């Protein structure tokens, strides 16, 4: 039997097939979005933090430091002394000399959009991920400490001694520079950084700065906030209100 196909049937079949393929394609796209960890991070997001110094108590800050130490395993280095000690996040007291008002800050890597540490690194070890998190690639770090000198926030530390029993998710070793990773291993799983999770109130908010529905984005639109050393035009991802 000779098979003939008229114009109407042809259009019907083609439309059905196209619709089928489209449905399938949508399904695939959805799946890839669900398994975000299989795909490289993109610059559609920029992770940031807003710290409200009016609401953040000294106990909160100590809690944040403790949570960071516990999460990443720093702070118990036996042989390092004084300035050699690791300090990924620190408590800072700032005083307004005119009024005498004292504020307490938690200061860590500010995850700049234009990070000076990345500019000066001779081996490309100091790097910024597409989603704005600034990291040290210890595989490439030669321990020259240029980045430590370049950082206006003194956020980086150098490991002076041999270490064992590191955390599984946080390799640390002698001769490399390290700093706050914004708990990148947790963020990639959709969790909050350890220091943010340790604060019970809304004094520290973490989220995507670009997402207009995120809490951090909406709060930043409403409240007065500032970057530390905003004059350097680094566009930091960690912002402060109340100072």
């Amino acid at each position, binding site marked *: 039997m000779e098979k003939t196909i008229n114009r109407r049937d042809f259009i019907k079949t083609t439309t059905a097939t196209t619709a089928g393929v489209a449905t399938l394609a949508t399904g695939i796209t959805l799946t890839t979005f669900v398994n975000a960890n299989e795909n490289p991070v993109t610059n559609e997001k920029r992770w940031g933090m807003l710290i409200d110094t009016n609401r953040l108590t000294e106990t909160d800050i100590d809690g944040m430091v403790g949570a960071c130490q516990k999460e990443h395993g720093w702070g118990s280095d036996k042989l390092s002394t004084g300035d050699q000690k690791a300090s990924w996040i620190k408590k800072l007291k700032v005083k307004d000399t005119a009024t005498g008002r004292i504020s307490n800050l938690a200061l860590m890597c500010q995850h700049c959009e234009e990070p000076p540490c990345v500019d000066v690194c001779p081996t490309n070890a100091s790097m910024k*991920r597409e989603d704005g998190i600034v990291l040290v690639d210890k595989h490439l770090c030669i321990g020259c400490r240029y980045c430590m000198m370049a950082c206006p926030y003194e956020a980086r530390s150098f490991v002076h001694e041999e270490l064992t029993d590191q955390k599984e998710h946080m*390799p640390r070793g002698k001769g490399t520079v390290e700093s706050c990773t914004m708990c990148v291993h947790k963020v990639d799983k959709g969790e909050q950084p350890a220091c943010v999770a340790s604060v019970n109130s809304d004094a520290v908010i973490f989220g995507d700065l670009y997402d207009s529905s995120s809490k951090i984005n909406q709060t930043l639109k409403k409240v007065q906030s500032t970057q530390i050393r905003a004059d350097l035009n680094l566009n930091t991802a960690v912002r402060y209100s109340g100072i």
Partner: protein
Amino acid sequence: MNRWIILFFSLIMTGAFAHGQKTHSLGDEAHSIKDSGKTYHESISVIRKMHPEFLNHKRDKTLREGVRTEEYSLKGCVTCHATKKDNSNDYHPVNSEGQFCSTCHKKVATSVDCFSCHRTTPAQGAK
């Protein structure tokens, strides 16, 4: 005649010792996978030859791009290839004498640099 017997026995003993050491250093979980007849790596010869490349590629993907899949993750290597100490819940560091990494690396005199930073045993609570 005696000489031949001694030679024969020493060969048998060497074989047995080498075999014993090999299975011992394979690691607890890798051993149980092997015993169950399953394979984890597609080809042993490929993983033996190519594991530095796989790990280097994976490290860049993970650190720089945030791709955190299990395939070729160093954490995965350590989890499977670590051996528990006798009568203890603690593990031998995977790079220590006679353990999985050091057995070959010592033989070919290539130092392993991974473990100056990376953890050498599975984390507490890991399977």
